[in-house]
């Protein structure tokens, strides 16, 4: 199955070539590749309707977290994740402010101790696909724990 409005034809055709499957060490007995599996998706059992408690445990162990959202997505919109981070009840350690990429405003972010909420302006659900430059900058900044 394919999510709506997503064109995955090219990668599906390439991944299903015999010589590509061989190069990737895929057993010949396996069925064709598809971007989404109905066999998994249809019968999946949800156990977590929120992961708030899991986040609180992880942050209490000193781990760092980044919650980022392309701000034109409607499957998982930025406002819901912004409310989620705010609802963790962690004191803010920065104001909500812009971050810059290539001399342009790339979005907004706010830090709450070890967790940062960040938006990527104009990007949709797949941020690295629709805002590749800002996404790489965001990624590198988070890995080295620098300021956005």
């Amino acid at each position: 199955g394919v999510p709506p409005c997503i064109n995955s034809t090219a990668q599906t055709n390439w991944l299903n070539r015999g010589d590509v499957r061989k190069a990737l060490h895929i057993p010949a007995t396996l069925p064709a590749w598809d971007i989404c599996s109905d066999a998994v998706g249809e019968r999946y059992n949800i156990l977590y309707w929120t992961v708030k408690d899991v986040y609180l445990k992880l942050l209490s162990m000193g781990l760092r977290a980044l919650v980022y959202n392309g701000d034109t997505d409607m499957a998982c919109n930025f406002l819901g994740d912004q409310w989620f981070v705010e609802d963790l009840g962690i004191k803010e350690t920065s104001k909500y402010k812009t971050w810059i990429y290539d001399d342009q405003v790339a979005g907004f972010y706010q830090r709450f101790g070890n967790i940062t909420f960040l938006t990527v302006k104009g990007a949709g659900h797949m941020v690295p696909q629709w805002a590749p430059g800002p996404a790489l900058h965001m990624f590198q900044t988070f890995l080295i724990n620098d300021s956005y």
Partner: protein
Amino acid sequence: QYAPDEVTDLPGMTFKPNYRQWSGYLQAGPGKFLHYWFVTSQRDPTKDPVVLWLNGGPGCSSLDGFLSENGPFHVNDDGATLYENEFSWNKNANMLYLESPAGVGYSYSDDHNYETDDDKVAADNYQALQSFFVKFPNFTLNEFFIFGESYGGIYVPTLSLRVATGQAKINFQGFSVGNGLSSFALNDESLIYFGYYHGLFGEDLWRDLNDNCCNKGGCNFYNSSSDSCKIQVNIAFSIVYQSGLNEYSLYLDCEGRQGFSKTYEKAMTLLFRNYRKTLHTYKYSGPRLSSVSLN
């Protein structure tokens, strides 16, 4: 590095990569084999972090992340040749893509029983991660991060908790979620405001939503017991997801098929799940929304 899995050449690759890559299988639970694709950093693989990337669904493949989002090369429209991604995340990180759970993409289980749940997926992913570090012991000391997208909003924290509390020696530093599902309630509630303030609903529907779903204490667009509220929320839901908009990116055209895959439809009924009982009784009826009979 685990030599048998090394990928030495790829059909359609007309450029010489400055990184190494492996593709093969990691043992998850008994009889479960998750396909992985590992590309080293283009900078300093011995020192740069190892990052696990998980797409969501549930039931969708992380190779979508590799081949159309942050991987080192993507596929041209011809479906045969590859081109380099100048903004690849393996510029300075070793990237591990895992197709999870079993049944997704090229991952499989011997019994072909693909029914699973959040905790089983987290447990399988944790086992697969340990299997990775057995195949690539040189990377055990590198800093380690877990990234995910969409339903990865559930996959990432639940796996992270196992890594953070488990026995395996992994130099775990942090996690990140992109456009993640972190709370079904907040996702549903916020979408109604997102839709109205992005001009998708108009004044009549907004007034009906407020009249039927809000009171002094605030609004409940998530699990209201009021049938009239459910009807209004369904209308809003159908405009966002069934009227031809690209719900993954509001200002982009809708490519590919509008058609729903079952996986996708299941995923979407997980959202607004309190209304999915009525979802199928109300299908968006196109532009004549204002005149649609609600009975």
